[in-house]
């Protein structure tokens, strides 16, 4: 059983050491990685994903339960404990959704009954994240950006069911983020979000701040920020409503902004 991942720190692009010696992520943690473009966020999750062992450009090492990850993670990829969803990640298959998920579920589980149950649970999960329901007979390549993201997350969470899930900037594709965080928190896993989204950052337990290729700080979400998270969500909801109106060809009026201000 995986209980912790430890990032033993390396160095930034200029060779100077990171701000913390090591960082321990515990099972159940929801963590954000924040920082400007080019600050090393994606490199950090790549280091985690492939269990850096001091030989990657950052010199970081990644430990599982305090020790070097067992070879079996590499030897038998089915035991690999990490699922990765990046901003480039997409489905290439053009199979119908049901058939695609069943193919994946079959290599992960034994019986056809499990496959059926996993399929149903995955779709239900995905459909709570997207406004436009996904049907089993839709083709994978027909799914919208939001549906694709929702299904990627649902598939990684339920069918892969890996103890660690890495999500690289998943917010840009119209999924219900608060709902996603709520659903994900019910599962005992380590979730790591690379994000620019204040909503996700504030709903995380802490955020790793990247600068110049290295970990510059670790900020725990404090009580004030937690209180503030609700306001941030409302602001964000308001923007979402405006975005939807634009999308549906409606006009925006000053009146809408007043309504949001009163909320």
């Amino acid at each position, binding site marked *: 059983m995986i209980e912790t991942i430890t990032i033993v720190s390396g160095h930034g692009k200029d060779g100077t050491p990171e701000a913390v010696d090591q960082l321990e992520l515990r099972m159940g943690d929801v963590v954000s990685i924040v920082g400007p473009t080019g600050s090393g966020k994606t490199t950090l999750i*790549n280091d985690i994903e492939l269990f850096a062992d001091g030989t*990657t450009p950052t010199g970081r090492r990644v430990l599982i339960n305090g020790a070097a990850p067992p070879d079996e993670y590499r030897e038998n990829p089915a035991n690999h404990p990490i699922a990765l*969803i990046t901003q480039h990640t997409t489905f290439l298959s053009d199979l119908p959704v049901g058939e695609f998920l069943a*193919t*994946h579920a079959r290599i992960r589980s034994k019986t056809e009954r499990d496959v059926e149950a996993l399929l149903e649970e995955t779709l239900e999960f995905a459909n709570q994240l997207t406004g436009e329901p996904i049907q089993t007979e839709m083709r994978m390549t027909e799914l919208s950006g939001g549906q694709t993201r929702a299904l*990627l997350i649902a*598939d*990684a969470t339920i069918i892969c069911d890996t103890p660690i899930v890495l999500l690289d900037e998943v917010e840009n594709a119209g999924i219900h983020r608060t709902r996603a965080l709520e659903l994900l928190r019910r599962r005992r896993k380590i979730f790591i979000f690379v994000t620019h989204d204040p909503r996700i950052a504030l709903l995380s337990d802490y955020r790793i701040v990247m600068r110049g290729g290295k970990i510059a700080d670790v900020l725990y979400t404090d009580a004030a920020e937690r209180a503030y998270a609700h306001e941030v969500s409302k602001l964000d909801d308001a923007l979402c409503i405006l975005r939807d109106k634009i999308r549906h060809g409606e006009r925006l009026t000053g009146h809408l902004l007043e309504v949001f201000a009163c909320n």
Partner: protein
Amino acid sequence: MQLAICAGPATTGKTSVLRHMIKKLLAQGYRPAFLKIDVQYAEEDIQLFKEFGIPTRKVYSGELCPDHCNVMVLGDALEWARECGCDVLLVETAGLCLRCSPYVTGGLGMVVLEATSGMNLPLKVGPMLSLADVAVVTKIDRVSQAEREVFRARIQDVAPSVRIREVNALYGIGIDPLVRLLEEAPAAHAGMELRGNPPVGTCTICVGKKNIGWREHFGVVRSLETDIFYQGE
């Protein structure tokens, strides 16, 4: 002399993987040489020479099958590497044939496959995969976790003895295990042979008869309705 022969379809990242291996090998004090075999165009030899200053060269196979060409020139290439004072030879093949494979009975056979090439690819590439020692999977961040897992499972289905290594060929992550496999592989030696049987290749089309339809040919022929799966030996 340690030897690695690298195959894999075009654009999968063979050169990127080898480039990172060269970097690691040099850091460990090895003296690698690099040979590229391609059909009609390649510039990897120039790129890698510029970057590392190691002995590099290329061979164009032209109208000869590039894997066939590999068999022809490999003996000379090992001699060349030795004369250059090298102790590792990395051979990058054109990697386009789905009927045979370039690996030999010494050294390490590597196939580089990209996860983006579809879940069925491992079922299609034949001996290029099944006779390799290690399958290196690139572009893993581009596809869904589901497709990546199905891809790995399909490699294991068709080639259970082939080790799988997922790498990030852009950042050079996951390359060390490949260098270790290269170090552990049996050294190149006299009397090495091609691992697989060459495919059936003796047909009248091979020798230049270009007419369409099997009735125009003799020797190894087949109609659309014939359901024979030709196999070497």
